[in-house]
């Protein structure tokens, strides 16, 4: 049985190749241009957020945002909605959150944002945010 499983099987090999290929393509599609993302940040986000650690505007600092849990900047006053969200800002989570109006993604949030519908700009932006550590 075990021997049979380890034996090369053309069908399994093809399925595995397609699966790995899909993952690679997906990650390549998501891999944006951080420099372009910095420009997107200036256009879309910089009025309400800084990338400086410890400095908040109307919105909290986005330094280290990727990998951070919600409502975790200690000197920022979050909405109840975000305090109760309890999620981690992964790149996927940011992708979903920023691609729609903020009040739709997190009803009750203070954030006023209509969403970024341009897929490339969104990828660039998230890639840039991921560099802020």
């Amino acid at each position, binding site marked *: 049985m075990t021997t049979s499983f380890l034996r090369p099987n053309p069908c399994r090999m093809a399925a595995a190749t397609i699966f790995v290929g899909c993952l690679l393509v997906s990650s390549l599609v998501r891999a944006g241009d951080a420099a372009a993302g910095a420009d997107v940040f200036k256009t*879309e986000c910089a009025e309400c957020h800084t990338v400086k650690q410890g400095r908040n505007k*109307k919105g909290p600092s986005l330094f280290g945002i990727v990998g951070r849990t919600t409502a975790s900047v200690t000197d920022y006053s979050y909405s109840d909605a975000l305090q109760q969200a309890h999620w981690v800002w992964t790149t996927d989570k940011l992708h979903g959150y920023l691609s729609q109006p903020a009040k739709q993604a997190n009803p009750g949030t203070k954030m006023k944002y209509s969403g970024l519908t341009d897929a490339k700009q969104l990828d660039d932006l998230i890639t840039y945010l991921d560099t802020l550590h």
Partner: protein
Amino acid sequence: MALLMIRCGGRRTRRVFVWYALLAWLMLVSTSAQAIPAYARQTGSACADCHAGSYGPALTPYGMRFKLNGYTDTDGNGVKIPVAGQVTETHNVPARGESSSALTEADLYVAGRVSDQFGGYAKIEADNIGHDKYNTRLSNLDLRFVAKEQKLAGKDLTIGVSVNNSPGFEDPIAALPSASLLGPPGVTGTLLNPSSPNAPANRVIGATVYGLLDSSWYGEMGTYNALPNSVQDRLGYAQSGDPGRLSDTGYFRFAYMKDLKRQFFSAGVVALTTKRQLPRMASKDDLTDLGYDLSYQFLGNRQHIVQVSYVNILEQRRYGNELVIPNTPDLVASDRANVRDQTLSVTYTFMQSYGVTVSHLVNTGSHDPVRYPPYGDPDTTSNLMSLYWTPFGRDDSWTSRANLKLAATWFRFTKFNGRANNIFGAPPGTLVTNAGDLNAFTLSASAAF
């Protein structure tokens, strides 16, 4: 029918007044920088978020929203002291006359939020009037109540009330002369132009109700009343600039604006109508301003910003007074007239720090040999060009919540009193003043903190 007589000696008085008015206008423009670091401290924002060149008065779309929200937005991190200051040192080089250097203006701003619904702006200004003496006056005032995040037919709605002392100053687009502090100078002008003689600006008090629907449709209406002379005096204003007794005054504004993040544009109409008695015992003049304004901003990634605005205001006048000159009874002023103010302004800003502004200012009016001696034409054409540098006020600068503005500004007159040469009609053998003699160059340094 009341007769308002111009005595023969009045022409000299008028000429002197015109000089003073022009000087006042030049100083107004040269020190027209407005920056309110108290707002930056309140919101955590940088000066550059609200002002393309990190120094006012021109607003970015974000700055417009802050104003519409009644100056109440905050970073939510405690109470901030709503006080800021500004000082301006100016070196003035007039085409005719001696150059001078002086601390021309010191300002105190009481500006900020009281609560999530109440906020305001008040500027107390001390102007150098020569010989190191300063005249302190209440400049612009704008107190607001606002109800944010309302809904109307499923659309976002912001509604508010503004109590202010200058029609147009409260406008969010900030293209109108009272808000841009850029109105054509001249011997006459519209009510909405603070550079006009006896303009209502800062000498009236009024209330307007405004609303912004779907972040795009803006409407506003309200009324104003002139402050009594005694109150104007206490607030630092000389009686000579009294706007007169105003009645049946209405202000209307409607505009469409669109913020596309990388670009912004707006188109609007404005109206101000009143019955004015000037002097206060005189008959009533019917005055109606009808104007439109267009603005465009290219913001991009904020590296290169271009702001363009055009304002055209027509004032229709029906005078209640008949104006004649003694000994020339056949020379009677018309009882109807039009005056028009036009301003075209273009500003380019690089890296939110280096900028150049070029403005073309045109003031025209109906021909009237009695009201506009010596030629009967009030037309004035002028230009303003300013180069400036603001080293701070950005997120990535040494400080984002205070700033310095160094500016070199040229004022150029190509027509005054309807003429390019001998603008005051000096007789042969006497000193002739040409429009170019009114030109001036200034170097100024303003610090806001």
